């Protein structure tokens, strides 16, 4: 249940909405859904290799059997003292292989929270997966300032849609808030700006 005055439609809400919908449709079918949420507080551990490594883990976790090449690489690295994680290029290759025969949805939330250097490498890796695999589909969210970068690095493969809550969203949101102050002043924005007045008897919504 949202607290009064909480955000109603953040990028991460949209990501989780899409992930849930994809998972629901993936049940019983031959497809996989993997997600990653950027966390500004944990930038250090969010390199392209760790992000896509976690995506690969989710995709492999959903398979009945781990692909032979991954098993072999795992066994080989065990012989090295301390073990060795996969390199970004290997992860990309494995993801390409799996998504060639299986529809694979990769959802990455809040690209703007990824440091710029990492972001470019991540987008290039995603672009490579899309280029070489028929079943891969990528879902991204982020703030508008990374849009140019997304379009540049995903070279014509990305469609963009901006998210702005609709009047309907605001009404659903307000209905879900259990305890109201007597009068509410609500801004959805920065643009469009919308004001809601609620008294005990009625709800008035003004949108530009």
């Amino acid at each position, binding site marked *: 249940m949202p607290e009064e*005055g*909480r*955000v*109603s*439609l*953040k990028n991460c*809400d*949209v990501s*989780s*909405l*899409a992930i849930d*919908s994809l998972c629901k449709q993936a049940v019983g079918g031959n497809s996989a859904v993997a997600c*990653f*949420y950027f*966390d500004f507080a944990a930038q250090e551990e969010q390199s392209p290799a*760790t992000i896509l*490594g*976690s995506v*690969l*883990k*989710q995709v*492999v*976790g959903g398979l009945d059997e*781990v692909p032979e090449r*991954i*098993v072999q690489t*795992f066994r080989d690295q065990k012989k090295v003292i301390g*073990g060795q*994680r*996969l390199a970004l290029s290997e992860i990309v290759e494995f993801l390409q292989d799996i998504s060639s025969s299986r529809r694979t949805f990769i959802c990455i939330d809040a690209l703007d929270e990824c440091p710029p250097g990492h972001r470019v490498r991540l987008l290039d890796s995603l672009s490579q997966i*899309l280029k070489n695999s*028929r079943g891969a*589909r*990528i*879902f991204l969210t*982020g*703030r*508008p300032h990374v*849009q140019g970068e997304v379009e540049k690095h*995903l070279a014509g*493969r*990305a*469609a*963009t*849609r*901006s*998210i*702005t*809550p609709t009047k*309907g*969203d605001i009404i*659903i*949101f307000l209905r*879900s808030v259990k305890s109201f*102050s007597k009068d*509410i*002043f609500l*801004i*959805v*924005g920065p643009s469009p700006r919308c004001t809601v007045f609620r008294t005990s008897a009625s709800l008035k919504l003004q949108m530009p």
Partner: protein
Amino acid sequence: MSQHHINDNTNCFNINNVWNNCTVADEKSEILAWLSPLEPRIRHQDIRTRRVDGVGDWLLQTQEYKDWFGGIHGGKSDSSALFFCGGPGVGKTYMR
């Protein structure tokens, strides 16, 4: 006597089988842990429980989303990637 012997063998085989399955399952979880220590599904669960049901559902009905979800790779409208972009504070509500 001979029947007892057969039973023993069967049990032996079963135990062996179970043991093999365990090994395979163990290796899979070892491989998954090696692929990544991160658990994004936990964050996902956290976000989805705070989400308000119904808000934003229309986004999944937009043409952009439908084309992306159902698109055929290499088809006429190939958008194999979809970028949903929301500004800072989009959807942010302030009340007083």
